[in-house]
């Protein structure tokens, strides 16, 4: 492969991707002129600047040697994201208590060191603590139990 600095290379690619989306989107808004900037002016400017930096990173990564990316373990990330999404789906219909017990219990398995009993106790204790803080102490309007 010709990529000599993988970290920089992929960072550059990420910048280019975001820059492309930004520029294309900004072009859909009115640009205006310098004296009367439209909503597209500043974002487009930023988009081009980001694209420039992305190009610099990519080219530099092909020329000079640099750090490689540390090995990726997908388990923690996937479990964490899944926990958040499950909470998002559950909170409205099922209420805080049930969704949070489920979310925290699941998230405990983001690490391979997780233990069943510990995760169960932890999720119950945390749900109690969080409900206490957010519902009873701060009186935030949260659905606590399933709405029938």
């Amino acid at each position: 492969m010709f990529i000599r600095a993988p970290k920089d290379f992929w960072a550059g690619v990420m910048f280019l991707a975001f820059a492309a989306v930004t520029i294309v989107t900004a072009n859909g808004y009115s640009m205006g002129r310098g004296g009367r900037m439209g909503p597209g002016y500043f974002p487009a400017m930023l988009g081009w600047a980001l694209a420039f930096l992305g190009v610099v990173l990519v080219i530099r990564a092909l020329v000079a040697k640099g750090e490689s990316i540390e090995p990726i373990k997908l388990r923690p990330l996937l479990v964490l994201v899944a926990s958040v999404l499950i909470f998002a789906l559950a909170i409205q219909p099922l209420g805080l208590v049930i969704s949070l017990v489920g979310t925290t219990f699941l998230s405990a398995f983001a690490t391979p060191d997780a233990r069943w009993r510990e995760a169960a106790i932890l999720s119950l204790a945390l749900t109690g603590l969080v409900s206490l803080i957010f519902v009873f102490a701060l009186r935030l309007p949260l659905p606590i139990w399933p709405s029938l």
Partner: protein
Amino acid sequence: MDVFSNILLGFGVALSPQNLVYCLIGSVLGTMVGVLPGIGPVTTVALLLPISFTLDPISALIMMAGIYYGAQYGGSTTAILINIPGEPSSVVTSLDGHQMARQGRAGPALGVAALSSFFAGCVAALLIAVGAPPLAQIALQFGPAEYFSLMVCGLVAAVVLAHGSIVKAIGMVILGLIFGLAGSDINSGVRRFTYGLQGLADGVEFVALSMAIYGLAEVAVNLEKKEVKSGIAQSIGRVLPSWADVRTCIPSVLRGTTLGSLLGVLPGGGALLASFAAYTLEKKVARAPRNFGQGDIRGVAAPEAANNAGAQTSMVPMLTLGIPSNPTMALMIAALMVHGVSPGPRVMTDRPELFWGIVASMWIANLMLVILNLPLVGLWVRLVRIPYRMMFVAIVAFCCVGTFTINSNTADLAVLAFFTVFGYICLKLGCEPAPLILGFVLGPMMEENLRRALLISRGDPAIFLSSPISIGFLLAAAFLLIVVAAPTIRRRRDEAMVE
């Protein structure tokens, strides 16, 4: 009103029972997360943002500030006793501090660390009380051109002083600015970057963004590493340092305080940079520098004084100019804005009780922290035994519930999930998230000032070169960029960070 009556006003505010309670909560939480490796003040402040929205702005700010400098106290405890710095800003403390502990002098090391922090904290608060009002006076005269240039300068400085690749850091600032622009444009009413999603109509929810990046993404990266087993804490002994120790430390503490206060004010500065710089300076100027690294008490006193001074003075740009110098300050700005207070020079004249209340709370918090830390040190050390596999679940719980409470909107949880993945990718690619957060907070303000400046000049960019202040900021920004681009200085900077 003169400084004295202002300080009295401040104490009147800070000593109210409610604010004392939040000051104590902040100090306790700060010490706690300072001791715990793997969770820092930024994460904690981010997790507490939703809670702070329910408090009045003064209490919220007093609590968040307490967390930030409380972490400086707590971080040194584990650095000294078990060679695990709870915070990056106490890494240098562990060099000499842990050596002292191994020589059976853990007590004096802890004592000196806490007392130098206390001294530095008191001096820094005084400096803020004296120095901030004139600075705000100057800032009141700034027009949109000056403000735009100031923000450019602030962002550049934040990038330069951050560690890692400069190009990536600038990219992250720009990306942050772009994310900050999402939502309804205040001038035209056009909904930008919402892609038809109702959840993005009011922009990217800042709480979701900061919790994703400093909470969940960090957890994901931490879980990939093997958990570090903590060492055994030995007996601590007498905490109060002897008179001889105190005498050796006085010049170091003074130097650390001065350097820390100065570096704290710089954008991008704050506790971390201050502690590293103070240790390096101490090695240069102290007599018998060879003792450093082998349990020299001066190597504990100077960085501890510096990091606390820096933590406090880093609030100056936020309170006087409305510019965050580090992510914690960006979070505080967000907390203020939710309460309809826009941070800037006007805070001091329009809401004097807010500014002076915070300054006064610094003294109170420092006093609380010394009391919390010295006699109770054994208690804090025990916290290290909490395994990370339990701690991170609590972070997940707070992120989910906290994000949802902001608008009772599940779309914000989708934002949380999206930025968790994004933050993870950034961390993996060596892109620091701090510049992104700063850019995000400044994005709308920067666009507004650019637009106004160019409206005044009818589109002529020369307006940025028409006032000496604006030229000064732009020159400073250019100078910083050139300096960092120069390879020799760059190497030096990296060395200083490694040391």
